[in-house]
């Protein structure tokens, strides 16, 4: 009898709190979005499952000694997002950007989404119930970088208490890029502009692709050391791939290593989706600000591209500016799709890959700025 009571008191039914039940439902919702809607399933499936597991009452999987507790250590140390960034670097081809370096300006412009959102988060403090300090505002703003590992890295350094919400917002909006961006892109451009065909990109030599990551890490070392962990690991991955001399390391970084770390990172991000941290008015603020960040980044990119088109000797289709938010390669595909709608001979994909990968550098630079200015 004693044992029966003990067992009943150890059930989830006995221990469930309302907020935990809601968070578990949030976890199942993320799983639904990942599986049925195809929202960034590689991240949102483990994140959603982590949310479910960590909200099981009395299971203690996030308490000291639990598996999710140990996994979170890899985020706290910054190791998981950096390893993923290394793998992403190894998968990235800087060719299109090196063929047309001006596209870096588009990658820069789109980061305005980040800084405008930082201001927006601080302004939102005027709303009762919202109370973001400067660190939290910066961590939220980085959602506008449209880059998962960067967002998780910055959030884990500046505002780990918001990590769950920020990661979910970042990956959700990246999945929603095909819905968020087109109306903005259409609103800011004419069909004629969208139909602009661009000159074919020159071929880029292997030597250029090898020298670029070295140059990138060197300039970062000189000018923005706070961005060095992110840009350094990204460049390492890119260099390993570009040289071809360490192919077995590059392939492992792109496959098994990034897969293992993705599972661990996803679960431990999910473990930060606890009721206390998530079920707050601020979470709505984060979700709203994230959407605004994406929208502003998209608009800035498009407007910058329109401006550059005015002064450039070769035509620049404004649509590729929207790819500057990163969200590789979805944003580039969106640009390509809208280009084709207006002009069936208009293939923008490779042209949009330039600003797209430039956006990754841009948001890593912005992350470095935030990490060095916000204390």
């Amino acid at each position, binding site marked *: 009898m004693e044992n029966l009571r003990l067992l009943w008191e150890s059930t989830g039914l006995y221990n469930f709190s309302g907020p935990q039940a809601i968070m578990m439902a949030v976890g199942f919702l993320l799983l639904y979005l990942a599986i049925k809607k195809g929202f960034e399933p590689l991240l949102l499936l483990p994140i959603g499952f982590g949310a479910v597991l960590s909200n099981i009452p009395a299971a203690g999987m996030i308490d000291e000694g639990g598996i999710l507790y140990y996994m979170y250590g890899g985020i706290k140390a910054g190791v998981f997002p950096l390893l993923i960034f290394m793998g992403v670097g190894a998968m990235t081809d800087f060719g299109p950007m090196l063929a047309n*370096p001006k596209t870096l*300006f588009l990658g820069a412009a789109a980061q305005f989404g980040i800084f405008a959102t930082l201001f927006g988060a601080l302004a939102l403090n005027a709303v009762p119930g919202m109370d973001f*300090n400067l660190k939290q505002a910066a961590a939220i703003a980085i959602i506008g970088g449209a880059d998962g590992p960067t967002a998780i890295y910055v959030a884990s350094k500046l505002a780990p208490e918001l990590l769950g919400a920020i990661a979910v917002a970042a990956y959700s909006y990246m999945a929603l890029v095909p819905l968020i961006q087109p109306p903005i892109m259409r609103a800011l451009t004419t069909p004629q502009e969208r139909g602009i065909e661009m000159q074919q990109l020159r071929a880029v*030599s292997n030597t250029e692709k090898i020298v670029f990551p070295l*140059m990138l890490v060197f*300039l970062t070392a000189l*000018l923005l050391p706070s961005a060095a962990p992110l840009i350094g690991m990204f460049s390492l991955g890119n260099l390993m791939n570009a040289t071809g001399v360490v192919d077995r390391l590059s392939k492992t970084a792109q496959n098994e290593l990034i897969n293992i770390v993705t599972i661990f990172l996803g679960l431990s991000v999910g473990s930060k989706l606890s009721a206390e941290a998530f079920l707050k008015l601020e979470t709505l603020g984060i979700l709203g600000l994230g959407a605004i960040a994406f929208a502003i980044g998209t608009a800035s990119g498009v407007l910058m591209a329109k401006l550059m088109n005015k002064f450039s000797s070769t035509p620049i289709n404004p649509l590729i500016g929207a790819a500057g938010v990163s969200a590789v390669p979805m944003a580039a595909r969106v640009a390509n799709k809208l280009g084709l709608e207006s002009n069936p001979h208009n293939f923008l994909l490779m042209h949009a890959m330039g600003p797209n990968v430039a956006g990754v550098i*841009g948001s890593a630079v912005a992350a470095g700025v*935030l990490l060095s200015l916000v204390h």
Partner: protein
Amino acid sequence: MNEMLSSGVEIMLLGMGIVYGFLAMLVMAIGAMSKLVLRYFPDHPLNPRQHQIEEAGVMAAITAAVHQYRRKHPKT
């Protein structure tokens, strides 16, 4: 409150300035680097992926598959 907003504005301006500055410098650096590389260290600017596909015929495919097969099966 007001102070935080003003520091937000400052970070916004400074931040965008640095992002633009850094990427502008990168544009120039890439331009210079590409010129130097293409002049002094020209290599075959073939798209490596296409190149591989051309090169790798059926023979290569079979070789790889045999290798794969050996990886999956014990030696004896």
